[in-house]
């Protein structure tokens, strides 16, 4: 990777959890990404407006209070409206809103993929792995843009 990719991090909605997103941001920075940290309590619309204004390559959203699905209902539509269909979207944290959901991660993952996310991560995750996947996804996206 020769260009510095720009990624947005933050905890979505009314969620005040901040440690996860801070750790993620730090690891991203150490791996050469330019990180725009929105912090906790970030409304969905702020992710979108920031992505527009900064021409960000990816959004890595955190959510820990179990309300993410509720917060992100029309996220995909808003992204398309904002002309951001090319932005890579990841979400992680505690996305389940019930014990059943928590027990069945694969189903939960599908739910968030439908909402527009490229990758969905469980509560416990290896950030080195996430970074590898992110770099891979960004490189693939850049290649396909060049090929158009």
């Amino acid at each position, binding site marked *: 990777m020769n260009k510095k990719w720009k990624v947005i991090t933050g905890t979505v909605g*009314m969620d005040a959890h901040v440690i996860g997103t801070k750790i993620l941001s730090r690891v991203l920075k150490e791996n050469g990404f330019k990180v725009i940290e929105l912090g906790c309590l970030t409304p969905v619309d702020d992710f979108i407006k920031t992505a527009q*204004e*900064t021409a960000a390559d990816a959004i890595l959203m955190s959510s820990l209070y179990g309300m993410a699905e509720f917060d992100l209902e029309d996220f995909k539509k808003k992204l398309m409206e904002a002309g951001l269909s090319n932005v890579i979207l990841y979400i992680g944290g505690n996305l389940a809103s019930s014990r059943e959901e928590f027990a069945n991660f694969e189903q939960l993952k599908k739910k968030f993929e439908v909402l527009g996310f490229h990758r969905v991560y469980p509560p416990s995750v290896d950030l080195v792995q996430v970074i590898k996947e992110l770099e891979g996804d960004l490189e693939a996206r850049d290649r396909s843009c060049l090929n158009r």
Partner: protein
Amino acid sequence: MSQHQKVLVDFGSTFTKVVIFDLSRESLVVRSQAISTVGVDATVGLKRAIQNALTPGINVGSSNNYLASSSAAGGLRMICSGFVPEMSSEAARRVALGAGAKVVETFSHKLTRSEIKRIQQLGPDIILLCGGTDGGNSEVLIHNAKTIAADARLLGRVLVAGNKETHDEIEKIFMLAKKSVLFCENVLPEIGNLNPDPCNTQIRELFIRHIVKAKGIKEDVLMPTPLAVLNAAKLLAEGVPGARGLGDLVVIDVGGSTTDVVSIGKQRPAHSHTVLRGLPEPYAKRTVEGDLGVRFGLEKIVELAERDKDSGDNELIRYSRAVWQTAQLPSSDMEKRLDSQLARVAVEEAFERHVGKVEIQYTHIGEMAYQYGKDLTEVEHVIGTGGPIVFSPDPRKILEGVVYNRDSPHLLKPKHPRFWVDQHYVLYAIGLLAEEFPEKAFRIMEKTLKEI
């Protein structure tokens, strides 16, 4: 002796005003005015205003004794263009207001042909092009620069204050179009960071060097009038070495065409559990309400007066309608009283638009308080200026429109302010004098402001 007197001139839209300060006594000597002749030859009006001021003992000396501001010929008219409305477009607008400009219109996203036509019709003095954080989106700003450069009818000076990565290409575009363009630092270099100063400096340079002359004023004008008032407000808040300022404060300027509000103070959360939202607000924040002047375009004020109607106020509504038709100044005591009431309506509404607001959202984790704008609840000083306030029989009544009201607790208005009036109507002159003699300007201002 003439070197101890300084003449401060304001080329207004209706009047050319002159204020003379005695610098050794640090006092006001005289204030006078004459009908503006800016359309023909500004010097004529200026000479008359000075004539009106002269009495034995006043020696105005040579012309390099003047400092001048101007709001003539529409003032400094600007068009702002950015990308996302709540981000770069809003940043552009706030910065332009802070430079003392009249923001005629603000556009967002890529400019369309019909928007270009509108810009051409509005004929701004400066077109401020913003968009993209540094290293962010380039597409929108470059598109807009191309579109503006390509239109031969657009005569305003172009100032680019957006994504710095676009500068090289925009420079090329304008060179090919044989038009000039200026660049300055991004007003929104990164999300959450408003950067007004470099752009303000550039706007002021343009105003002094080109725009004022284009409006027919040969005299050296230092700044647009609103900026002079803003600077006086800053000076009063900050003080000078040896004299403490008043701290955070608010200035209300009620005029015939607009009501302006200035608040000096950093944006801070009102409480420890309040979260700041929205674009950061500048330390010196200025808002201008073009629909709240008390002489021209009274439609909004009439509407507000009607909405707040109670038994005694039919009289107010009738008066406001009459003024709307004739724009006449009040003469009888009753008219003066009613005029003050109109000013009060304007002040309340203008301030409500300016002040910070708190929005409580109820969530499963408890009450969350989101704050937009500045918390002015602890502001201790409110200063009123502008004819309708200065010449009112009860200016305090008008200014009390800014006080915190328990019925609208979400408006972060001052709870226990002291009130002052610019009794000689010289605030602009203080702001101008502060350019050369800040300490004297401060001390003169202390003398000319009257607590009410």
